[in-house]
């Protein structure tokens, strides 16, 4: 498919916009619909789109297996780290009020990092599942 000029050009035009849209959805999840899950899925979809047009090996060079596997674990770990930070700073587990001097700013910080954790895990898992299915190869 990478020999098709239309697909290549349109892909190269669209994929940056898709990634930008994913970041927009992620960070505007506070003020409009959106948040970590939607953004994670859109990010994974953008890279899957790249893999469909330019081939799985090209996508594997762009986002290697080791990076994806790290992402899968890193997001959940980040979420728990925010929870433990609440514990270490004197509050309950996953307490956001203690994360900053001003409780509302603490909430903002907590929600920000938690949503980033969700984004990383969801996009990592969706991408890894796609890599596993697409890289398997038919046997018979």
């Amino acid at each position: 498919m990478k020999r098709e000029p239309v697909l290549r050009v349109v892909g190269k035009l669209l994929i940056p916009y898709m990634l930008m849209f994913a970041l927009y959805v992620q960070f505007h999840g506070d003020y409009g619909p959106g948040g970590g899950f939607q953004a994670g899925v859109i990010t994974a979809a953008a890279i899957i789109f790249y893999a469909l047009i330019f081939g799985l090996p090209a996508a594997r060079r762009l986002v290697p297996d080791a990076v994806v596997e790290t992402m899968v674990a890193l997001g959940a770990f980040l979420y728990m780290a925010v929870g433990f930070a609440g514990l270490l700073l004197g509050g309950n587990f996953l307490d956001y009020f203690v994360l900053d001097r001003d409780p509302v700013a603490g909430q903002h910080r907590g929600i920000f990092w938690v949503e980033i954790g969700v984004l990383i895990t969801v996009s990592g898992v969706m991408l890894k599942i796609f890599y596993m299915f697409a890289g398997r190869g038919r046997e018979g």
Partner: protein
Amino acid sequence: MSAFASHYTYWITVLLMAAGLYIVIARGNLVKKLIGLSIFQTSVYLLYIAPGKLIGGTAPILSAAFKVYSNPLPHVLILTAIVVGIATLALGLAIVVRIREAYGSIEEDEIVAADAGRGERE
């Protein structure tokens, strides 16, 4: 309001649920069963979200211009449910791929017959 107009959303939910259930129990192809399961799950989303809607309300994003909001709590629960649903689908499909490689088919009757044949030979 007549019983039909006020309960219409529940009945559509039941219809979709019944269709999903029928696909799961009446079709032998494993991939189609998984699709039926996901249809069943989406009908449950409808079951939860429809009662949360208030006519004349708006999406639950607080703003000075609106006074009445639809209920945000089912939205939160169903958001989690959607993500869990796709996790289930991905794992189910991985198992189906492994079954295909082990038995050579994804039709339930052929797999059961192959298992019975294997059992007799052992």
